[in-house]
């Protein structure tokens, strides 16, 4: 059977402090000026570098450069990817700005690759709402058109931070073993697997026994009851929390399993939960079941006598 897979979205707004060199560069961009920095060999780097690439000396002499320059190399992007400067086909280019000795990587809005050539002249097109980011330059454009009205300088406090949103999209696959386990859950069954070498029963089953490095194979159906091996009382609220603290997150060792898994223990006061407590699964209504361990809403005490410590000491 095909392993299960699902989209996985990963996103984070990276917030970075800039320091004196990049801070000044970004402040300049916000004010619609491009500043480079003079290197140890006299060359002007634009964008500026904090340390000389040859001598590693800290660089401090800023030099204003033009917002026009010359294309040193280019490539054509016929189908722009998410996040790139333009949504319609454009050129990537290394642009050496007038007054600089190094090139800046950016987009050129040329309309067609036929308008692109090495050595062509381009100028920056400024973003309407500058914030102090490399994207304050919306893109470059060929210099053969009429000059657009130059936007007013923006001004304000020095820029010290830059925020870069990053969003990546993945298709996350479960292993074959995990897929059997997840499909079992959709039928209200708890399916583990036994390692052929050490005989241990893992739930969820693993692609390889972490002790022996061999795939687990023999399927073992486990009951929905077991013992709390260890637990913590959650008192701290956090983003996305589904239950009002305090509540108990516990490792539950199902009867017949050799590895505990994390779940909630509800149905009694948090301070009554203890190591060795016998618990059983409380399933959600059958019509809500899917390929997820969330089909078990939580575990609750069974009222049976506690398991002796020795019976789970190996599984802590």
């Amino acid at each position, binding site marked *: 059977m095909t*392993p299960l*897979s699902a989209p*996985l979205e*990963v996103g984070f707004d990276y917030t*970075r402090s*800039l320091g004196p060199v*990049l801070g000044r560069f*970004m402040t300049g961009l916000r004010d619609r000026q491009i500043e480079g920095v003079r290197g140890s060999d006299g060359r002007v*780097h634009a*964008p500026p*570098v904090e340390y000389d*690439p040859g001598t590693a000396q800290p660089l401090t002499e800023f030099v204003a450069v033009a917002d026009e320059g010359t294309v040193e*190399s*280019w*490539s*054509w*992007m*016929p189908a722009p*990817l*998410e*996040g*790139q400067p333009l949504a319609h086909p454009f050129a*990537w*280019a*290394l642009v*050496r700005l007038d007054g600089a000795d*190094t*090139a*800046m*990587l*950016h*987009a050129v809005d040329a309309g067609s*690759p036929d308008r692109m050539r*090495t050595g062509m002249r381009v100028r920056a097109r400024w973003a309407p709402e500058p914030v102090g*980011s*490399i*994207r304050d330059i919306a893109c470059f454009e060929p210099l053969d058109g009429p000059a657009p009205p130059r936007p007013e300088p923006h001004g304000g406090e020095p820029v010290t931070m*830059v925020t*870069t949103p*990053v969003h*990546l*999209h*993945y*298709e*996350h*696959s*479960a*292993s*074959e073993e*995990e897929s059997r386990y997840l499909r079992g859950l959709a039928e209200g069954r708890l399916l583990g697997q036994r390692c052929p070498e050490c005989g241990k029963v893992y739930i969820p089953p*693993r*692609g*390889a*026994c*972490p*002790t*022996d*490095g*061999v*795939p687990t194979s023999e399927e073992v159906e486990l009951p929905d009851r077991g013992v709390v091996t260890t637990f913590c009382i959650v008192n701290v609220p956090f983003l996305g929390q589904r239950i009002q603290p305090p509540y108990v997150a516990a490792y539950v060792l199902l009867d017949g399993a050799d590895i505990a898994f994390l779940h909630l223990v509800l149905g009694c006061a948090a301070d009554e939960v203890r190591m060795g407590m016998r618990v059983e699964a409380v399933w959600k209504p059958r019509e809500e079941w899917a390929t997820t361990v969330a089909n078990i809403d939580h575990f609750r005490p069974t009222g049976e006598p506690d398991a002796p410590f020795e019976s789970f000491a190996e599984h802590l």
Partner: protein
Amino acid sequence: MNTDIAVVGFAQAPQVHRTSATTNGVEMLVPVFQELFAATGLTRRDVGFWCSGSSDYLAGRAFSFVSAVDAIGAFPPIIESHVESDGAWALYEAWVKIRTGEVDTALVYGFGKSSAGELRRVLALQLDPYTVAPLWPDSVSIAALQARVGLDRGLWSEKEMAEVAARSRADAAANPYAQLSGAVDVAALLEEPYLADPLRTHDCAPVTDGAAAVVLAAGDRARELCNRPAWITGLEHRVDSPVLGTRDLSRSPSAAAAAAAAGIDGVTVAELHAPFTSQELLLRRELGLSDAVRINPSGGPLCGNPMFAAGLTRIGEAAARVMDGTAERVLAHATVGPALQQNLVCVMEGRS
């Protein structure tokens, strides 16, 4: 201290466009390890040091390399390390570890499920996070900028680039692990539309899922494990500036420096980790490889480029030519970063 260190085993997973396996590599690695144990007679408990190369960005999850350790069977506890880089750099770490004399064997592995995300976008995150990455320049576009520099200067031509692709595909026909192989016509390739002008699809390595592993051993241990070890005579890596606009993209000074330090005279086979045809042409110039040197007899990364394993695969493929007696002295090259920014050269030879 161990001074004589050799590659004594190499195995790889099939290079495929999309595996149904997880991003933690376990399903690809378990059979690769089994193959190496069978070939060398080692058991997992005999391995002195384990070192891996992979990327959480590629996997889309934190600490994916820790999950991969399941494939080893890490009990009793093992000595293990990881680099967020190609497995070739993990091999470098393992080589240093053996040189210290602390261990006399190491198993090095690299793995990547490139198909899980959008590889071209994921690789944008290795760029300068202040002035470059916020524009999301993709890996193919950056390679295209580099290719254009060489084309403009007459250092290579689109026809020569297509010839690299055609030679690679033809050689890959003998490599059962290769993702792409077969006869292709250079003139027909040049009729294809651009993927990222001046690069066409055949100029770019495919998106590949895969894994590879290499066993290193020192001195007499190497001779016990392998009839004809591939002795490492030079292993060096160097890096160029991350600032693309300060570099002459038609050159790779770090590759030349690594090769000079490693000592590459006399090699007859070179496995070059050039994921773009123009980069192979650049590297051949930079390393000064004559036409007599056989380039990428495996088909190379243009026929299968499992991220974070492809550089290690070059070392394994080159070593395999020594171990099977078809070559005396070989070179393997690995790269990471944009436009051949960081380069590693490993030179190996057989001894009678």
